[in-house]
């Protein structure tokens, strides 16, 4: 049974940390807890490395672990959901401050719209749209039939469209 050594861990970590972090954040993990969640995801990956098929890309496998870790973490009661938290823009060149504030607003709007989806739909949508997983890969890592994944993706797209438009134009009411 192959085990994950330190070098392999570092290689996988450097390559996939960004994607796993983005996935957890878009799922709804608060900034203050994301470090603990990342720890649990990569520790689980080390412990379950023997179950990973090296002939296949590692990202779907890791995102499947991340989905389970996030779901379990929510059940523990340790969560501190901070939906709508308003964080200051990170320090940087003042000349692009306006653009960064605008991007942050858009990011907050998209995140709020994502959080309107129920969790399985949100996870499937994020895996598909942002991380490029195929519906079949999503079905495999979420351990559901392909038909379920297609249903979730279709529903997520409709609901997200409605949520984004409603938040972009709060006075107009329903989606176009």
């Amino acid at each position, binding site marked *: 049974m192959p*085990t*994950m*050594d*330190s070098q392999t*861990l*570092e290689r996988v*970590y450097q390559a996939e*940390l*960004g994607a796993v*972090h*983005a996935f957890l*954040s*878009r799922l709804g993990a608060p*900034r203050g807890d*994301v*470090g*603990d969640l*990342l*720890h*649990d995801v*990569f*520790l*689980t990956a*080390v*412990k*379950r490395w023997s179950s990973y098929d090296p002939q296949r890309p590692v990202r779907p496998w890791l995102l499947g*672990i991340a989905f*389970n*870790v996030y*779901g*379990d*973490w929510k*059940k*523990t*009661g*340790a969560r501190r959901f901070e939906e709508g938290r308003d964080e200051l823009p*990170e320090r940087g060149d003042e000349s692009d401050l306006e653009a960064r504030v605008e*991007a*942050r607003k*858009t*990011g907050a*709007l*998209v*995140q709020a719209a994502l959080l309107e989806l129920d969790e399985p739909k949100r996870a499937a949508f994020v895996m598909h*749209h*942002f991380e490029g997983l*195929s*519906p079949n890969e999503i079905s495999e890592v979420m351990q559901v039939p*392909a*038909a379920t994944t*297609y249903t979730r*993706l*279709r529903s997520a*797209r*409709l609901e*997200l*469209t409605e949520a*984004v*438009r409603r938040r*972009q134009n709060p006075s107009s009411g329903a989606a176009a």
Partner: protein
Amino acid sequence: MNDLELEPLPDDVLAALGDAPVPALPPGVAEAVLAKVKVSAGLAAVAAASNAASQSVSSTTVAAKGGVSVLLKVLPVLTLTAGVGLGVAADRFVFRPNSVTERVVVERVEVPAAPVPEVRPSVKAPPKKVAAVDTLGRERVLLDLARSALSSGDVAKALAAVQSHETQFPAGQLTEEREALAVQILWTAGRRDEATRRLHAFSLQFADSPLRPSLDAMMR
């Protein structure tokens, strides 16, 4: 059934998703999390040994703002023995968190030459069953509770949390961390004989544990 059957997102929604920035990690978190994973997975001793060959500072202070605070949460006092298994002089690096200054002081302690144990690059010394993913979070909550209680001086509560973990997860994924914590709690509670016995059992079960040196240092 294939991807073409999925309706594309409208252009305005696609644009909003495209304009939303990719979530970025706070500075320092990536390094702190990797270090913590290595410790939890039992890979830290090997990593520390690799780093030690080029390590020349005798004492330094690392700012613990942001990411390193993650390390502080789980490692009240962490000691890594470097040089093990490389045939070089062994040094001990002690990471002492200071909750007031939010800094970690890293001290290098010279260790007299002594027979060094072989460090196998295995994840854990004894083979253990892989627990279900969904139990890891619950295990961590209990151990975090124990650490928090210990740091606030409530050893009874800390011990209760550890015993709860032992009852619920007798062969859990964080068994090694639990046993090390139990030794620390018993020692702090003044139950020195029990702490010594438990350390002996810990040493037998986790012969290569990177947590062992910090326990030795505490009980010295």
